[in-house]
């Protein structure tokens, strides 16, 4: 049993950790009441996916993917493809975070809060007030 756990951790354990990170992000998005925290949890999810891809690019005796005279075979370098893909993913996650923050600012300016419960209550109040105003006209 112990050896089984050891082999699992040595060979596949890191996938489990990325899975836990992803689950933490999803849990945060569902459970948190504050929209700012939801945005942070979305970033945690993105980081989990990036870690997962980087795990796939590992090779045991490999070095960084910059060509050297001493190493000529493909098995001596780690896989450059996940690194390239995740480099762009990181930068795009910066863009999505920026758009999310600007949406949060607009919500804060219109309703005065970014807590979900308060927001729903105030939205109800505003629609009721608008309906009353419409009746009076």
């Amino acid at each position, binding site marked *: 049993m112990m050896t089984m756990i050891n082999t699992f951790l040595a060979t596949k354990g890191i996938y489990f950790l990325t899975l836990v990170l992803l*689950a933490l992000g999803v849990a945060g998005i569902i*459970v948190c009441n504050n929209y700012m925290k939801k945005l942070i949890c979305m970033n945690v999810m993105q980081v989990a996916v990036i870690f997962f891809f980087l795990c796939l*690019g590992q*090779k045991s005796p490999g070095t960084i993917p910059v060509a050297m005279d001493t190493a000529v075979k493909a098995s001596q370098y780690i*896989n*450059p493809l996940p690194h390239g893909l995740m*480099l762009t993913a990181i930068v795009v996650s910066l*863009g999505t975070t920026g758009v999310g923050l600007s949406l949060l*600012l*607009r919500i804060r300016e219109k309703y005065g809060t970014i807590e979900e419960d308060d927001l729903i209550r105030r939205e109800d109040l505003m629609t009721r007030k608008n309906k009353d105003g419409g009746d009076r006209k």
Partner: protein
Amino acid sequence: MRKTITVILLIISVLVPFMAFDVLPVIGDPQSAPNTHVSDYYIENAIEECNSPNMVTAVIVDYRAFDTMFETTVMFLAGLSVVIILANKPKRRIPAHSSLRRMKDAGGRPIYKTVNKDVMISVIEPVILIYAIYVLFHGEVSLGGGFQAGALIGMTYLLDIMVVKRDRPIFDIPKARAAAIAGFGPLIYALTGIVTILGGGLYLEYNKIPLPIHHAELHSIGITAVEIGVTIGVAGTIITILNALMERISFDDDND
């Protein structure tokens, strides 16, 4: 109630993939599926075909140049949408958090827990900028590239905003103008592709750039031009997002 159901569902969804772990490759296995097919080709041919010892740069701006072009466009569109979302004039700025407002100096003026202005502007920022330029132009030979250089230049602007008072900025780039600067990045990228078409090749086929030099040098020139475009796009977008968000928030030392 919502929290309990969520936690139960998440525990199930973490435990179920234990059965699927057999499918995933062993960490560090050189013979696994992601490490064999196309990645070996990239590693073995990057130097001859792209004249780029850094294989990550060869992959993102030569073999997969279209991908990177549209990622840069996505960055530009993100900056543009931030400008559009925050286009209206706010009635009043959102005040900074109260924990930032408590500290006062001897004269009763508010001070923030910031870094020293003289050290920041005269010592650290030039180093960051030199490093950004190095990473940009050396990105195809050693570690680095356009995205990192753009992020470094954007961070320099962030440091300026952090340490200098807002009514006396060193560089003043309004958000709309910064978005316009960011738009030049994808433009340079696309123009590089058009130049290669004029030279008789396909779009972004760097060794058809109409210059009378060796094709390896042409690849270097193409990669550098594209990286400059990426750098301008990323730096402009970071500055756009930063300015658009910062002009909505008021601090104690603002005069207006």
